[in-house]
């Protein structure tokens, strides 16, 4: 088929051609669109300038250095009400990151498992997973957050139930207290190590009770991390060695005991040398004291975001797997691979290329959905900077601008990281 456009005749330019001539028409419409866009933004700007709120107080970020004056429950870094609004905002940002990262990890695990099981040959499992996906993705996440919070508040016992000689509730294994304010875990700490010299022994000379002596532990945690990293590389080396042997002899040497030893022995030795102790939560006064508290606001938010987004990820995973031609599975089966290895070695690596791009969107959704935290009183960035600070200072425009800048930056970072990962698993064309 041929198209009959022909060479343009040299009969000059007429104004009517802006609409009738295909060569100019697109320019005309683009110009109109640009003009409309400029007018629209101009209207917004002039509206903002005439805004009575803005006219009264102007834009001024000075409030960030003033004392915040309010308490924050979950403080990943030290904070008092005398700290600045900026510090309160930073704490909020860290809290946002904490719940976003936790939820991204668990949502991925849940989603991958549910997505694979939705394709199971077992009818019951398959249908159960369909029910999970359909229930969780068809009810707004806000409702799920409220449901989980209300459940945790009303189902678990208050700390007062742990009191008395014959309490209604007891800590799990004597270590972990599950209350309607959150879960109190034992907290590990070190009694010797680097960083800070422990206080002098008690005056009565009783140095047989070292557990009360705590030293600054961040340096110690770095040591632990370094040891774990060492174990990781050692295990990798063992695996590589096993692969080389397998390629050479056809037999893979048994390595599980080496792997186990490489993980456990150095870690146990390090922790022993550093003097690891556990700070077990104890009921004193109104609350459990000591240990680590995972507040039920965090747990409810984390859990709700995980199961909600997990349902979406499950569908992405299922779609990714279904997109791999069944010939691949059959070919792998013909080679004698068992179903689990077919999934792990043949199907999933190819499916990842299809799964990752929509997965990025789901991670971004989780991050943005964390801003619902205030409904359960979790102090994220929207609750501190966009909530209390905004309200106490009245600096709405400034706070919203900062909020937008944060969420935008964080989302773009997630996008960049995930896109880089996507590029690494994408089909390499050579």
């Amino acid at each position, binding site marked *: 088929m041929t198209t009959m456009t022909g060479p343009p005749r040299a009969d000059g330019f007429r104004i009517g051609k802006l609409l009738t001539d295909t060569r100019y028409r697109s320019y005309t419409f683009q110009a109109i669109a640009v003009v409309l866009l400029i007018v629209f933004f101009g209207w917004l700007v002039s509206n903002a300038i005439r805004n009575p709120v803005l006219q009264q107080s102007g834009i001024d970020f000075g409030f960030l250095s003033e004392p915040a004056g309010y308490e924050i429950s979950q403080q990943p870094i030290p904070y008092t009400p005398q700290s600045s609004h900026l510090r309160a905002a930073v704490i909020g940002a860290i809290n946002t990151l904490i719940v976003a990262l936790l939820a991204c990890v668990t949502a991925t695990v849940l989603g991958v498992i549910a997505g694979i099981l939705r394709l199971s040959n077992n009818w019951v499992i398959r249908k159960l997973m369909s029910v999970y996906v359909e229930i969780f993705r068809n009810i707004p996440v806000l409702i799920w957050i409220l449901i989980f919070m209300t459940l945790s508040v009303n189902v678990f016992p208050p700390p007062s139930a742990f009191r008395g000689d014959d309490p209604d509730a007891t800590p799990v294994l004597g270590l972990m207290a599950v209350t309607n304010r959150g879960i109190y875990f034992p907290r590990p700490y070190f009694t010797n190590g680097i960083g800070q010299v422990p206080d002098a022994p008690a005056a009565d000379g009783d140095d047989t009770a070292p557990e009360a002596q705590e030293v600054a532990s961040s340096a110690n945690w770095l040591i632990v991390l370094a040891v774990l990293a060492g174990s990781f590389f050692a295990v990798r080396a063992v695996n590589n060695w096993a692969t080389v042997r397998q390629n050479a002899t056809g037999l893979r040497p048994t390595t599980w005991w080496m792997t186990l030893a490489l993980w456990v022995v150095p870690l146990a030795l390090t922790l022993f040398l550093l003097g690891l102790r556990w700070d077990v939560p104890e009921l004193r006064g*109104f609350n459990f004291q000591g240990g680590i508290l995972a507040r039920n606001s965090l747990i409810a938010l984390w859990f709700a975001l995980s199961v909600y987004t997990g349902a979406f990820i499950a569908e992405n995973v299922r779609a990714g797997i279904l997109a791999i031609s069944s010939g691949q599975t059959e070919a792998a089966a013909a080679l004698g691979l068992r179903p689990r290895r077919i999934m792990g070695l043949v199907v999933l690596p190819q499916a990842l290329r299809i799964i990752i791009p929509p997965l990025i969107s789901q991670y971004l959704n989780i991050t943005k959905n964390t801003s619902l935290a205030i409904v359960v009183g979790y102090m994220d960035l929207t609750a501190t900077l966009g909530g209390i600070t905004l309200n106490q200072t009245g600096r709405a425009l400034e706070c919203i601008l900062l909020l937008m800048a944060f969420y935008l930056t964080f989302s773009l970072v997630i996008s960049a990281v995930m896109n880089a990962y996507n590029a690494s698993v994408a089909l390499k064309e050579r």
Partner: protein
Amino acid sequence: MKTSVLFGTLAFAGLAAAGASAATLDDVKARGKLNCGVNTGLAGFAEPDASGEWRGFDVAICRAVAAAILGDPSAVNFVSTTGKTRFTSLASGEIDVLARNTTWTFSRDADLKFDFVGVNYYDGQGFIVPKSLGVTSATELDGATVCIQTGTTTELNLADYFRVNDMSLEPVPIETEAEARTQFLAGACDAYTTDRSGLAAVRVAYPNPDDYVILPETISKEPLGPLVRHGDTEWGDIIRWTYYALVAAEEYGITKDNVEELAAAPGDNPEVNRILGTEGELGAMLGLDSDWAKNAIAVNGNYGEIFADNLGENTQIDLARGLNALYTEGGLQYAPPFR
């Protein structure tokens, strides 16, 4: 990326810019309705009743103002506002007046640029705890988990109080009264703190009010009153003097029942005559009809009647007049002269 930031910001600013012109009175008259910001639901202060009619102490102020300006106490759009949204609503012109248990503070007046026209309720912040907790004083609350409404002055007072008394605190911020109720009744917080009048109001709504006790300490001054935007002083005057008319009416014995009779003809008391418009031109000075105050008082009666109907000892909330009695009875309610 840059454009999306700009776009979002401007869209936000654009939304906030609607309304809010200087002559609020003209706007209200043209609209035929007063937009009044009230609580989302607090027994005694602002709560819709079984038939959906808003009732309460703050609501009565809105109705009195509507009656004074428009002659019709039902010409009010009630806009429910949370602790967080109330100031934006007022600043943006979505509401003409905010009557929502709002504490008069320096920074709200000077920095947020609002005018508090008076104090219709002198309050202070207190704590409510379950009796079973065995606490008799707020100074015993060291280490307690406290539910607190976010976006209020109580949040700052609480932090100050615990710091001054060298106590530690686990705050549970909540958005609405309903959430506070869930958490507090389940024991997820040991104590709930807000204005004492609010505590009295929520306590009666608990399943077993007698199991809860309001601690004796009052940890702050909370003068609550209606407020308007800076910059329209004529409008502020109307709210202020409507409110004072209610207070003066109690002082001079003008009630819901006798206001029509007193306004029919000039009586012996020249102050009463001036308030009710049978003598002088006070209404015209505000840009209102001469019977503005009569209309305002006729809606729910004078200040004392409004208090008794919504908060007083014959209601469930059972609050004593205390600081809110007239100055002649040892309280702080005092109306300047009408002349």
